[in-house]
């Protein structure tokens, strides 16, 4: 059995096995169905989509019941829970419409392309920072690289549709070159806002 999250609720989502640790319950799923990080994320998304609120463990971590028996993170759960209860995350990325991943082979052209990409990434980050600031929601640190800038914003579940509309309005308002796209996905479980302090003993 692998641990996919924590809840302070006594109810657990369909398919989850509860494991009580004081006021908190670890949510376990069978090892067969949680072999890969992708499979663990898919189960977390399915639980989240039922409307169930929980603190998701990073899917890249494969935590067993034994790992959390002596977990030192329980004290942090309360703080994390206060921040994310009733919320999910949207992932926002500003990137070129057509991504050209290959680089030229010649040295000078390679350097020029690299410099152009760095300038483009800086421009994308500036644009994303402006968009996120206008949304005025909690945000994690912006990730920059691979021709894009991305961030996650924390959104109350009930405001998901309103936030989608707000993002669409902001995108319409921003004048930019034809080459730039704002990619938005969600609503995801609030993974980007739960990992700090969620280590195990």
């Amino acid at each position, binding site marked *: 059995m692998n641990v996919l999250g924590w809840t302070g609720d006594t109810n657990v989502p369909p398919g989850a096995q509860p494991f009580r640790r004081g006021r908190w319950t670890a949510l376990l799923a069978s090892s067969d169905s949680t*072999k*890969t*990080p*992708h499979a663990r*994320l*898919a189960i977390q*998304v399915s639980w989240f*989509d039922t409307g169930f609120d929980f603190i998701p463990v*990073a*899917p*890249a971590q494969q935590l067993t019941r034994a790992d959390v028996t002596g977990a030192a993170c329980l004290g942090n759960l309360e703080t994390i829970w206060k921040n994310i209860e009733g919320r999910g995350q949207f*992932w926002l*990325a500003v*990137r070129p*419409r057509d*991504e050209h*991943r290959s680089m030229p082979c010649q040295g000078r052209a390679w*350097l020029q392309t*690299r410099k152009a990409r760095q300038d483009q990434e800086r421009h994308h980050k500036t*644009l994303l920072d402006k968009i996120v600031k206008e949304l005025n929601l909690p945000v994690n640190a912006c*990730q920059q*690289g*691979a021709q*894009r800038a*991305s961030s996650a914003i924390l959104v109350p579940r009930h405001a998901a549709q309103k936030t*989608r509309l707000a*993002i*669409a309005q902001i*995108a*319409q*308002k*921003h*004048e*930019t*070159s*034809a080459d*730039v*796209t*704002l*990619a*938005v*996905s*969600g*609503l*995801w479980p609030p*993974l*980007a806002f739960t*990992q700090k302090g969620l280590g195990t003993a």
Partner: protein
Amino acid sequence: MSLALEMATPEEVMGSSDTALVDVVDGLLRHGVVIRGELWLTVADVDLVFLGLDLLLAAPDKIRPEEQA
């Protein structure tokens, strides 16, 4: 021209082979860390040699194809 917008649900992202969307899942799964470095060898203010390095640092099970993980 206004900013082009693409919206996707988690289900669309997870079922997609579009590289842009796959990057979302990679980000959520925290596949690893990319370390970037660059070194310029300069003599008398003349740039002679440039060394650029992009290094992906991740656990093997995070970067193997899923069926092998």
